[in-house]
């Protein structure tokens, strides 16, 4: 989830956090849910702001609703931190971007995109354990001075964007990550929980490597924690060290149960990337054979669409080849026929265009774009 705020402000905040580090040394660590029943004034303020954010995001329809998936994620979190099972609530943000963060009231958000990019439950547990550690150590409260400094420096943001600062700053802080010291603390505690729960600790390195590869390929300029190449490098290094210090090796990945619970997100992710014109992400995912194999058989259709959106020399030919590949692998997937019809129409190959359009409408008689296709068909027939 990216709040509608100027990217430079998030970058500023991120760097302020890095410079300031843990400003509040007197902040307590939460040991169990009951610790949250009596909050200090500072804690209450942040708790209230976090609840406001929860409410706002829910009202705006930002939360992806899938009861079975949410229950599964919650069960992973509860097993990692049983002492916070009454407080920590896992939610899925309906966003393709790679992001996850925890709010000071125990709300932990995982974007649909980051879950879809994971390979197994051990990787999921790595991210969840890391985020709940931020809640446990109250890192958002510890970095309050950095944020308050940013409020003074960045006051003009509210004028330019109309966004009230308090809640958004809280979210920005959580999404941008914390000081190096705080992140390392979350790494250590998260890793401890991960292996205690019997997961394979080496998967913790892999999930951050997946994020880093994506950030690198996309040349991500976003300061969000899971899109930040340097910060992910730190995590990988930290996880490698923790794995080396471990006496035992191996552990569970629960790949099958994870795939059963999250497999349907892959198709959704492709559609979200396409609609949002995020063709770089699509090409990055689908040109790589190892990654491509995890996506539906018709995924080449999305690769074709991504090439057409990118529009570099040779992309039109690549798109056509990708559509034909999708058609071969998934002959009942209607959008491939539509795409080929459009390509042939633009190439003035009327007979082929009509053939593909007819097949598209035959496979999808109630297509949302039926009226457009009928219009194009009629134009082709008039012209022939």
């Amino acid at each position, binding site marked *: 989830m990216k709040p509608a705020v100027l990217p430079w402000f998030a970058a500023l905040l991120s760097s302020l956090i890095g410079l300031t580090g843990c400003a509040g040394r007197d902040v307590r660590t939460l040991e169990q849910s009951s610790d949250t029943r009596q909050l200090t004034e500072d804690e209450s303020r942040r708790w209230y702001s976090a609840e406001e954010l929860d409410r706002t995001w829910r009202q705006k329809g*930002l939360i992806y609703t899938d009861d079975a998936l949410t229950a599964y994620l919650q069960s992973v979190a509860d097993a990692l931190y049983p002492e916070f099972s009454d407080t920590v609530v896992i939610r899925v943000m309906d*966003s393709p971007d790679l992001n996850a963060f925890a709010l000071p009231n125990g709300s932990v958000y995982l974007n649909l995109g980051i879950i879809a990019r994971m390979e197994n439950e051990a990787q999921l547990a790595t991210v969840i354990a890391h985020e709940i550690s931020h809640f446990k150590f109250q890192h958002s409260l510890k970095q309050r001075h950095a944020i308050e400094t940013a409020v003074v420096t960045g*006051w003009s943001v*509210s004028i*330019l964007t109309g966004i009230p600062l308090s809640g958004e700053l809280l979210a920005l802080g959580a999404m941008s990550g914390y000081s190096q010291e705080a992140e390392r603390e979350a790494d250590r505690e998260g890793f401890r929980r991960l292996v205690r729960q019997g997961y394979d600790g080496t998967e913790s390195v892999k999930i951050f490597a997946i994020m880093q590869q994506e950030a690198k390929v996309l040349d991500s300029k976003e300061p969000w924690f899971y899109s930040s190449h340097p910060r992910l490098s730190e995590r990988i290094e930290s996880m490698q060290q923790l794995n080396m210090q471990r006496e035992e090796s191996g552990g569970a990945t629960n790949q099958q149960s994870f795939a059963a619970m999250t497999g349907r997100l892959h198709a959704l992710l492709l559609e979200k990337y396409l609609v949002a*014109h995020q063709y770089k992400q699509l090409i990055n995912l689908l040109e790589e054979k190892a990654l491509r194999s995890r996506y539906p058989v018709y995924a080449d259709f999305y690769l074709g669409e991504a090439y057409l959106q990118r529009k570099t020399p040779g992309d039109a030919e690549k798109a056509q080849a990708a559509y034909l590949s999708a058609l071969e692998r998934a002959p009942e997937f209607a959008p491939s026929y539509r795409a080929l019809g459009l390509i042939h129409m633009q190439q003035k190959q009327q007979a082929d265009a009509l053939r593909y359009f007819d097949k598209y409408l035959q496979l999808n008689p109630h297509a949302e*774009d039926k009226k457009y296709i009928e219009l194009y068909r009629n134009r082709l027939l008039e012209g022939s």
Partner: protein
Amino acid sequence: MKKFLPSILLLLLLSACAGEWVRVDASSVVHKTDLYRVSLPVGWVSRQVGDTLVVTRDGPDIQKIILRVSKHAEAFNDIQAQSKSDMLPTELADLFIAELKKEDSDSLPSLTIQSNEPIMLSGRDAFHLHASYRTANGLEYQLLAVGFVTEKHFYAISYTAPTLLFFERSRESYDQVLDSLEAI
């Protein structure tokens, strides 16, 4: 002084890039630029902000009609895409939707396309979208938008209002504005 700085800056920003609100009366119904001619509803107010004309009766949060004409190279800046004179209305609609979502990524999941159909406007093939979305307060808005291309420009005209009370109330005025639009 620091207390008033934000307000002063806001005023400076607004005055630097936007014209005044002008009430539409019988003598100023027809709004004409080098690129289009359109009839505006009497009693509403209009304001030109760069390449964008904003028209409202009760305030932009209540209802607004926006007409924007951009050069192809600047048509979809947020998603770093351009329009072209030979683009199909479906392609334009896809880009327009992606741009809408990019403008306010918070609203991305809640933006629902109710319909997306071809129409003819000003003698050109165009897309006609009907969408809805919810604000942070949970208020549902509806959006109607039409877009088409000419040799050098992308034209987009839209109408936005809360579903509750206002959307249907001013829809006819929007339809009249739409019907009157002539690309030059």
